[in-house]
């Protein structure tokens, strides 16, 4: 099995943080806990959660901008390493903060927080945003300013404000 094409990070990057679980193996494989197949699934799942969170902010996924992708790689590595640790024998299954279950419970929330915090930076880096804040608005009665052929005609009075002029995707809508 290999990672999905829209996934971030890699098995090697997760291994760097979980090497103590190799138990004598040189890498995660079919004999380790977790197996390499399970680890790849952790990466795919965390990447999927992150992609959905970023799509909710209108960002096109998977993120390919090399700088923005570094952040996504880092986030997914952290989540996958956490999943990997959770495969170990343990107790303490309570709802208390810092317990094993709390790590699982907060995954989607952390993805949404990540997308909310970084979406503006991503857009300014050049990450495409196909769905923008004004997407839900419709205008009738006249052509949108951006579509008018005379919008650069200085002999005509032009509107001071235009659609999407104040889109700040990093802020709450």
């Amino acid at each position, binding site marked *: 099995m290999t990672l999905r094409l829209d996934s971030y990070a890699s098995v090697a990057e997760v291994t760097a943080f*979980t*090497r*103590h*679980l*190799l*138990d*004598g*193996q040189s890498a995660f494989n079919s004999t380790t*806990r977790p197996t390499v197949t399970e680890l790849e699934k952790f990466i795919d799942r965390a990447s999927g959660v992150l992609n959905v969170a970023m799509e909710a902010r209108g960002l096109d996924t998977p993120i390919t901008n090399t700088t923005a992708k570094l952040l996504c790689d880092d986030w997914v590595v952290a989540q996958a390493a956490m999943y990997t*640790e959770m495969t*170990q*024998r*343990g*107790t*303490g299954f*309570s709802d*208390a903060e*810092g*317990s*094993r279950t709390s790590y699982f419970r907060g995954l989607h929330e952390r993805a949404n927080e990540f997308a909310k915090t970084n979406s503006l930076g991503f857009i300014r880096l050049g990450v495409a945003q196909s769905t923008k804040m004004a997407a839900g608005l419709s205008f009738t009665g006249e052509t949108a300013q951006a579509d008018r052929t005379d919008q650069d005609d200085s002999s005509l009075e032009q509107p001071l404000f235009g659609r999407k002029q104040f889109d700040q995707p990093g802020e709450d809508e």
Partner: protein
Amino acid sequence: MSYSNGETLILAALRSISGGVWTVSNSGVGKWSLLNTGKADHYAILKPGAFVHSFQAASNSLTEWRTVIEVWQRYKDDSDSLLSLEALSAAIIQKFDQENRLDDTTDTVQDSVCSGGGEVTEQWTKGGGPAWLKQEIFIDWKEEANVTFS
């Protein structure tokens, strides 16, 4: 001879236990970082214990050293992991029963014995259950030295 020389002899004896159970990858003096390497599921870390130093003659000192072997076993499964640790400790005890002079070629180690050990402890992660089992095994050995007064 000094403490570190004796400790080196103990490490060598440990690594000579048959089966290649202990190697440079999973045993060392004070190298707790080994536990993070993933190169084995069990590790042995040596450290100095308490010691007693005295004169047994006018110019002859005797030091009773203790070297502590921390045996670490990764906690993977109930019972099985503990049984693995027990087997590791038993092999160490057996080995040092056979090494009463630690193969010292300088004739300064007078006596060496595995004098005991501690109970097995669980090393927990916060909220995550036991991650390691650890047992300390004590190797007590005596060093005799001639003293030249200044």
